[in-house]
C-alpha cells in the first residue's frame, strides 16, 4: 500500500473541457497521491481519455487547473511535463530498433551514448525484454510492443506514468498476466501510475483507488473495495460487477435503526451506520445486493440472518461457480445468485423452490 501519509502529486481543480458545443468534462476535482495506482474507469465517451490527455499536456482544459508536483501546468507543453504516456496503440516508432525506441527520449536530454545504452538495457530488463534491443520494431509481438512502450516511458524516470487502455489490444490470457506484472512493477518502482480503462475488472485488480466517470463527471472516487461494496448510486453499482436491484422503501426510524420494507425479501432494520451520508430516507426507493451476498440454502444447517423463498428459473455453470436466476415473489425481474461449487454441493435444477438467505450488512441503499 501507499505510505501512511499520502502526499499529493497531481491536483485537479474544477477541470472542464468543451469541444464546440459538446462538454467532454463538466468539472473534475481529484487529488492523486505519490506512488498510487490510480484508475479512471468509465464507459467510452465519459471523458476519461480526455482527462488523461490533459494531464499529459496534449489537451488544454477550458477551465480549471492541473497541478503536478506542486507546479501549475497551465501553458506547459507535453514535452516539458514530468509525465510519460503509454499509448493505446503503443506508438512504437516503426523505423527504429527496440533500443532506439526506448532511448528516444534520453537522446533529447543530450546524455552521453554509453549512459543511454546502459539506461536502455536496464529499462529493457525491467520489462523482461533484456537482449532484444537490436530487434526491429516491426518484428515484435503485441505483448512485446506493449513492454517496449512501457520501458520507453519508464526510462525517462517520470513522476507519473500515464497508461491509455494499455491492455485492450492484448488477448485475455496475456491481459491477465500483464495486469499482475504492471501492478508488481508499479509497486516495486513506487511511481504513480494513472490508468484509463473501461474494463472494471482491470481497474479493480490493479488500482489503489478508482475514479468512476460518467458523462464528464466523477461519479465516485474510492478504493476498489469501497466501490464494490458501497457504490454511491445505481449507475456505479451496475457498472462495477453485477448488482441485483430490488424495490424498497423506508418505513421509519426505530431506535437508531432504519426500518426497511423490501417486498421481494421481507422487512429488516438497518443499523444507522450503514446509511450513507446525504441519503434522505424519504426518497429511498431501492436497494442493491450482490449475487454472492444472496445464498441458496441447500440444507437446514446453513445459517442466514434472513430467509426469503424463491423459484429457480435458470442456471449457468461456470466450473468454480454456478449462477442462478431466481424469481422472488412480487419482483418482476429475476435476481442473480452466485454459489461456489464446493464439494458435495449439487446444482439445483430449474423449477425448484429454494430458501434464499440474505443479511442486513450486504444491502446498499439507493435513492
Amino acid at each position, binding site marked *: 500500500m501507499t505510505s501512511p501519509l499520502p502526499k499529493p502529486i497531481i491536483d485537479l481543480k474544477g477541470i472542464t473541457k468543451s469541444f464546440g458545443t459538446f462538454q467532454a468534462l463538466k468539472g473534475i476535482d481529484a487529488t492523486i497521491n505519490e506512488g498510487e495506482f490510480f484508475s479512471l474507469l468509465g464507459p467510452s465517451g465519459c471523458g476519461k481519455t480526455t482527462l488523461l490527455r490533459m494531464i499529459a499536456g496534449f489537451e488544454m482544459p477550458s477551465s480549471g487547473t492541473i497541478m503536478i508536483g506542486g507546479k501549475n501546468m497551465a501553458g506547459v*507543453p507535453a514535452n516539458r511535463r514530468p509525465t510519460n*504516456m503509454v499509448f493505446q496503440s503503443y*506508438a512504437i516508432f516503426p*523505423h527504429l530498433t527496440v533500443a532506439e525506441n526506448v532511448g528516444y527520449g534520453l537522446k*533529447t536530454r543530450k546524455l552521453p551514448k554509453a549512459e543511454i545504452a546502459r539506461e536502455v538495457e536496464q529499462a529493457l530488463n525491467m520489462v523482461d525484454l533484456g537482449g532484444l534491443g537490436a530487434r526491429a520494431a516491426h*518484428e515484435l509481438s503485441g505483448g512485446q510492443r506493449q513492454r517496449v512502450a512501457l520501458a520507453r516511458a519508464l526510462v525517462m524516470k517520470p513522476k507519473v506514468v500515464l497508461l491509455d487502455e494499455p491492455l485492450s489490444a492484448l488477448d485475455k490470457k496475456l491481459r491477465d498476466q500483464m495486469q499482475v506484472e504492471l501492478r508488481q512493477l508499479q509497486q516495486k518502482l513506487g511511481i504513480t501510475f494513472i490508468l484509463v480503462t473501461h474494463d472494471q475488472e482491470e481497474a479493480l485488480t490493479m488500482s489503489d483507488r478508482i475514479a468512476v466517470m460518467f458523462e464528464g463527471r466523477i461519479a465516485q472516487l474510492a478504493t476498489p473495495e469501497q466501490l464494490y461494496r458501497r457504490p454511491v448510486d445505481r449507475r456505479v453499482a451496475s457498472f462495477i460487477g453485477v448488482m441485483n436491484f430490488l424495490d424498497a422503501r423506508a418505513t421509519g426510524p426505530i431506535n437508531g435503526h432504519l426500518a426497511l420494507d423490501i417486498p421481494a425479501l421481507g422487512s429488516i432494520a438497518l443499523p444507522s451506520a450503514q446509511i450513507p451520508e446525504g441519503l434522505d430516507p424519504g426518497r429511498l426507493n431501492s436497494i442493491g445486493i450482490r449475487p454472492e451476498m444472496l445464498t441458496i440454502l441447500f440444507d437446514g444447517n446453513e445459517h442466514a440472518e434472513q430467509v426469503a423463498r424463491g423459484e429457480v428459473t435458470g442456471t449457468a455453470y461456470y466450473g468454480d461457480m454456478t449462477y442462478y436466476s431466481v424469481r422472488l415473489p412480487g419482483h418482476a425481474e429475476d435476481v442473480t445468485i452466485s454459489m461456489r461449487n464446493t464439494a458435495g454441493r449439487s446444482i439445483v435444477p430449474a423449477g425448484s423452490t429454494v430458501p434464499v438467505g440474505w443479511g442486513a450488512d450486504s444491502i446498499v441503499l439507493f435513492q
Partner: protein
Amino acid sequence: MKSALKSLPSKWLAVYAVAYMVFLYAPVILLPMFAFNDATVISFPLTGFTAKWFGVLWQTEALHGAVRNSLVVGLSSAVLSTVLGACAARAAARYRFPLKRGIMSFILLPLVLPEIIVAVALLVLLMQLGMPLSLVTVVLGHVLICTPFAIAILSSAFQGLDQSLEEASFDLGETRWGTFRRVILPLVMPGVVSSLLITFTISLDEFIIAFFLTGTEVTLPVYIWSQLRFPGKLPSVMALGTILLVLSVLLLILAEWFRRRSARKQGIEASATGGFA
C-alpha cells in the same frame, strides 16, 4: 500474383499480352536502333553500327545549354512542388478546416486540365503582369502541373502516419522540429523521394508549357522539337532520345528500389505504401 498467372484460362490471353507489349514498346525500341545506325536517313534496312551520333551530341553546344536548362528547371520544379505538396498533404491529413474537400479538389484540378489551356492561360497572365519569359516562368508553370502529382503521392504517405507517433515523440521531451526530423521525415521519406523523382521526370519531358513560357533559353524537349526541322540532325536526336530513355528507366528502377527498401525496413508490404512505379 504468380499463382494467378499460372492459372490463366487460355493461351490466347498470353498472345494478347505479348501483342500488347509489342504495341507499347516497339516504337521505343526503334529509338536505340536508329541511334546506332550509321545512315543519316531514318529508314529500314539498317546499314551498319556506329556510335558517331553520340559524338555529334557531345559537340553540340546548344544541346548542352538545353540539358543544363532542363536540369535546372526539373530540379527546381521537383523541389518546389514536393515542398508545396508535402505542406498540402500534411494539412489534409492532420487538420480539419472549412471547405477542405473543395480546396483539395481545386488544388488537384491541373491534373485533368488540358495542358494547352493551362499554358495559354499562364502566358496571358504573365504578359498582363509584364513578367519577362525565362526559365523562372517555366519553373512556375511546371510547379503548377507537378504539385497535384506531389500531393497525390505524398497524401498516402502522410495519411498512413499514426498521429500518436508524433504525440509519443513530443511526450518523450522532443520539440516539434525534432519530432519532424526524427519521426515524421524518416517515415514519409519514401513518399518524398517518389515525389521528387516523379515530378522531376514530369518536368523534364514536359513540352507544351515549356514551349509557351520559355524565353531565349530553351529546355531539352523544346530544343529537340526545334531540331526536328533539320533531317540531318535526326539520328543525333535519336541518340539523345536513347540516352533519355536509359536515364528514365534507371530513375524509375531507383525510385522503386528505394521505396521497397524502406518499406521492408519498416516491415510494411511494399504494395501497401502506394507509389507509381
